[in-house]
């Protein structure tokens, strides 16, 4: 049974399901990541300008010890599955029409988000590596988290990169959220318009939320 299930998940429809499901879980991660990061900025009840609440949050996460490493491995697997499947699909799709059209015109169903998934996805992968090197694998961050983030994001070039990437995440999610529902088999005429709106709203909230942090450190901090 497991073998046949494995074969099914390796099919075109099966990989779509996995891509959608991992996408949902990654959105969940992004929301918690955003919640944690907002503690860096003075938001009543959430964060403060001194970064004390953020440092407490980091300590809280580290208190899980081995559990945190397990969660990180799980997260890594999610990212790897999502990225590997997406790359494979993109390559196969390019192969599926070797001879293209001389004149090509769509009917407006395609969106900027849907048409650029492979581009935004690839940019996010590059960013992910940079982001991990900037913080996760920098000893400075672990010594004094909030102060280190403040120092990094006060640099205009860094801040601009982080702001730009927030926009890229937003574009990716503007298609990804709605698309994931379709991929896991949820589509209903009554709910689809709500899904489109929710997806775009969520994309905007996540993009603006993440962009706010570098904007704060660039213009309002210190």
């Amino acid at each position: 049974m497991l073998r046949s299930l494995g074969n099914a998940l390796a099919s075109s429809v099966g990989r779509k399901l996995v891509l959608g499901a991992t996408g949902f879980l990654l959105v969940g991660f992004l929301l918690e990541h955003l919640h944690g990061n907002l503690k860096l900025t003075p938001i009543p009840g959430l964060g403060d300008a001194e970064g004390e609440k953020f440092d407490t949050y980091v300590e809280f996460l580290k208190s899980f010890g081995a559990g945190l490493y397990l969660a990180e491995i799980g997260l890594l697997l999610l990212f790897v599955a999502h990225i590997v499947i997406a790359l494979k699909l993109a390559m196969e799709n390019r192969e599926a029409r070797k001879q293209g059209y001389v004149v090509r015109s769509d009917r407006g169903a395609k969106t900027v988000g849907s048409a650029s998934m492979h581009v935004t996805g690839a940019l996010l992968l590059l960013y992910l590596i940079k982001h991990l090197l900037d913080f996760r694998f920098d000893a400075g961050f672990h010594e004094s988290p909030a102060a280190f983030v403040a120092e990094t994001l006060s640099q205009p070039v860094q801040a601009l990169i982080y702001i730009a990437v927030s926009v890229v995440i937003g574009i990716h999610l503007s298609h990804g959220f709605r698309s994931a529902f379709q991929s896991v088999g949820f589509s209903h005429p009554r709910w689809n318009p709500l899904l489109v709106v929710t997806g775009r709203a969520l994309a905007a909230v996540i993009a603006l939320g993440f962009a706010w942090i570098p904007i704060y450190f660039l213009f309002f901090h210190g």
Partner: protein
Amino acid sequence: MSDESSGMHLTLEIWRQDDADDRGRMETYHLDDVSPDMSFLEMLDVLNEQLISGGREPVAFDHDCREGICGACSLVIDGKAHGADAETTVCQLHMRRFKDGDTIHVEPWRANAFPVVRDLVVDRSAFDRIIARGGYVSVGTGSAPDANAIPVPKDRAESSFEAAACIGCGACVAACPNASAMLFVAAKIAHLSHLPQGAPERDRRVLAMVDQMDREGFGNCTNHFECGAACPKGIEVETIARMNREFLSAALRER
């Protein structure tokens, strides 16, 4: 409209390809006196008569019923499968939709799974092989069954019929940026699985037809939804979500 005649003057850029091995190229033709009341295919008939009388090879294109129900006609016109009209096959597209002096680009469906046979004719037998893997129901032969022996709820009958409207033309593949056949396969699965008559083979059907679709080398769906917008029969992309759902439950139940 020109002064001398009531017809239109058109420039046609048409894909010409001698056979599957030929590289192919766009060729330019000029056609005068095209009546706005002609269908697009009748316009091509006129072009072909002109070509034949000039001793040249006519343009090969697929067509059959010319009533919009057989799914044979298959042209990409100015980059759109079946042309710009919504829910219309090429045979039902009329020249009044074009303007005097227009240049019109005509190309075949493009997908590796639909190799060009000649000019605008492509080989769509990949669809037949997908159907052969499970797009049928088993019935007992013999005397005709009583009418209404199997009760079918009205909404089920209707949703089945909506999916059954698929004429298998392949516009979904042609319009999909990824050359995916999922709308076609989903429609063929849905019209049977919505009915009690399709229930015995339900799980086997979805697994086998998806498997064959993958073998044929179609692309993967990434939810652009261009297929649904291009479908001349208005098959909804919701049908694909239903197939995904059915595929997952069949895969989980498989022993």
